[in-house]
């Protein structure tokens, strides 16, 4: 196919805009970086109370027989801490951040007459990455009693339940960002590889702001930081369309080319993040702590609140797309852009709105995901492929499909960790993606006619 490329020199405005946007973005982020950095250096960060990552569990010799005073030693990543079970048999240890840990049950700490069911299997490898609350199982029983098989099954059920809850929470975060990808793809046909950086952008801006607003009381600090972050994220989306994609569209640049441009943007922005944020992981502490038991799963209140916020926003986005004029116009553009244009819809304006909306939703996803697992410079890039997988599984360009796909991917990554090594959880999601494409290329909800 022929490529229409007018000479570069004819579009000085495009270049200027891109450079200006990029400089503005860098300046903005750098400015925030300086502010945040000075705030951090002025007062050392408080100890991580209500830490993002905890490891824990219940030690009991059968149902209704919790063991008090059992000790579990957690080591790794520079910490060595012992968790002691309370009267309800629960123990937990706060972790400083993502990483590899080991947890070892001290058999001598068990009361007389109680011993581990598997005496030669007392150490567990813990890989803290996306799941903020990790439950460990140390089966114990009456001395000499044969291991109770039913308990193993019940414990497995507990673990699966825990992962299902985590999977739904993770899936909701993914959905917020995936709907952004899906809307952009639907209206413009573009696969945006810089979308992961939009997630990171939200998380990093929120991190700097929550550090700057540390003196403020909860929940004012969160609300203020959240609102500013969402506005900045929307502006980031706006800038990408205004500075890059609008000029590319009006030049008739092909989609593959535009996609490679987003790859370049992703790379450049990601390393701007490295320079201003560093390569370490930081936890987001908004002064909100505590946890709640949902069945066997212990979930922090922050995660519960985040999940509720995600669900509410997703419902609002659904209402926006189906009930409002702009939402309906958005769907019309997704269906057939030239027909929409012919019936009087300003396609460029809709696309601009979609970019701002996608930026805001994705920034929010970054904030919530950052609260869940901490903030790092490549947190968005790490889940970019999961986002593509969610969007592809749901059916490219279908917003509702993106939600279904995201929940599916969230559940698949978390629940597979029950049986598979933790470090293969993302691989599983991607294997599922490829297998589904084999059987149903249009995704779960996509229409067959759209493909090829």
């Amino acid at each position: 196919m022929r490529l229409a490329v007018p000479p570069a020199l004819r579009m000085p405005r495009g270049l200027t805009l891109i450079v200006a946007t990029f400089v503005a973005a860098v300046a903005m982020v750098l400015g925030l970086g300086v502010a945040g950095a000075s705030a951090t250096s002025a007062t050392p960060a408080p100890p991580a109370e209500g830490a993002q990552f905890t490891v824990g569990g219940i030690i009991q010799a059968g149902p209704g027989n919790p063991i008090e005073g059992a000790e579990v030693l957690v080591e790794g990543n520079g910490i060595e801490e012992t968790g002691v079970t309370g009267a309800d048999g629960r123990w937990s240890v706060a972790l400083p951040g993502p990483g590899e840990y080991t947890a070892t049950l001290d058999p001598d700490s068990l009361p007389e007459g109680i011993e581990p069911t598997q005496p030669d299997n007392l150490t567990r490898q813990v890989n803290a990455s996306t799941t903020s609350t990790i439950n460990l199982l140390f089966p114990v029983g009456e001395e000499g009693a044969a291991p109770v098989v039913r308990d193993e099954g019940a414990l497995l059920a507990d673990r699966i339940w825990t992962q299902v809850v985590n999977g739904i929470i993770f899936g909701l975060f993914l959905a917020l960002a995936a709907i952004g990808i899906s809307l952009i793809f639907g209206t413009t046909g573009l696969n945006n590889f810089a979308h992961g950086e939009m997630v990171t952008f939200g998380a990093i801006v929120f991190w700097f702001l929550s550090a700057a607003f540390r003196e403020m009381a909860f929940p004012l600090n969160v609300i203020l930081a959240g609102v500013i972050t969402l506005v900045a994220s929307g502006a980031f989306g706006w800038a990408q369309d205004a500075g890059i994609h609008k000029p590319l569209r009006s030049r008739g640049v092909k989609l593959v080319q535009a996609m490679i441009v987003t790859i370049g943007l992703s790379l450049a922005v990601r390393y701007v993040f490295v320079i201003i944020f560093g390569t370490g992981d930081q936890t987001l502490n908004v002064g909100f702590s505590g946890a709640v038991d949902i069945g066997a799963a212990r979930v922090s209140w922050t995660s519960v609140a985040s999940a509720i916020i995600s669900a509410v926003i997703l419902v609002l986005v659904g209402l926006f797309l189906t009930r409002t004029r702009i939402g309906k116009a958005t769907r019309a553009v997704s269906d057939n852009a030239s027909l929409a244009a012919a019936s009087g819809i300003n396609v460029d304006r809709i696309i601009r709105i979609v970019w701002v909306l996608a930026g805001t939703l994705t920034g929010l996803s970054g904030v919530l995901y950052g609260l869940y697992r901490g903030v790092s410079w490549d947190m968005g890039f790490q889940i970019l492929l999961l986002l593509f997988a969610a969007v592809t599984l749901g059916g490219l360009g279908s917003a509702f499909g993106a939600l279904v796909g995201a929940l599916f991917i969230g559940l698949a990554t978390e629940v597979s960790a029950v049986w598979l090594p933790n470090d293969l959880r993302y691989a599983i999601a991607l294997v599922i993606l490829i297998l589904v494409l084999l059987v149903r290329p249009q995704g779960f909800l996509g229409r067959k006619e759209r493909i090829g």
Partner: protein
Amino acid sequence: MDWGTILGNAISQIASPTTAAYALAAIGISVHFGYTGLLNFGQAGFMAIGAYAFAIATLGFGWPVWAALLMVILASVVFAFILGLPTLRLRADYLAIVTIAAAEIVRYVVSTTGLTPVTGGASGLSGFSGGFYALNPIPEGTYGFGPFTYTADGWWVRIVGWTLVAIATVLVWLLMRSPWGRVVKGIREDEDAVRSLGKNVYSYKMQSLVLGGVLGGLAGFVFILPRAVQPGNYGTALTFFIYTLLLLGGAATVFGPIVGAMIFWVVLSLSNGIIVGLVESGIVSFLTPDQAGQIRFIIVGVALMLLVIFRPQGIFGNKKELSFSV
């Protein structure tokens, strides 16, 4: 600032084995993307497959170099089939997503703790190149001039690496001037038109995917000769670097991948040397040396954007035959 060292380091990149590995991988992408129009975003996966195939065949099975190289080719072919079978009938962007996903699956699998006895887990593998260097016919000693002074082993790895690049270049040139090349270029332009002329488009796409993939696998082999196999090296950024340098040289040109790889590494080394020099000598005070080391990635990203927007045919590409498709 020591300009001599900075310049010397930069110029020596022209012949480095890493440059040869990138050039080889880029020739593979030029077959896929430049000539056939296939969006393979998983070249890092092919390189990882090649690297691990060689290392595991050598360390795990104790195979000689030639057998390990056959293993590299075989593993790349198998990987290409696994990628191509589900996706080559689908729209172009599906291939992009599946290849990038598959490359990441490879990276996750080779770095998983459970496979540490085979792949070395997160720390990777080393000590596999003894057999390769034992084949070195050059007597011990140091040869060369200026920045191009290497030990006998240094020469050996460069000779082998660049010989592979030369063979690949000639092979691709022969193919692309042939009727076979005409068919794949036709597919790049419009696969339905080629189908309507009685060509089995699916089969040609698969052949192209296999050829470029094997070149990627061999690039993985060259890449690990001077270093250990480390799973962290095979992230998606590697694929995007290869796309950048290919677009720099011109995606559908014979020498584009080679020239692009050389420019890419010389410019990276030069800019990195200058920035680090400026930081260390205190002229630039707002960056730490660590941060300065990251600026090159920003340069690559911005260069990729500007190239694609303003010079899609590459610096040396033919302006008439623009190097983009789809």
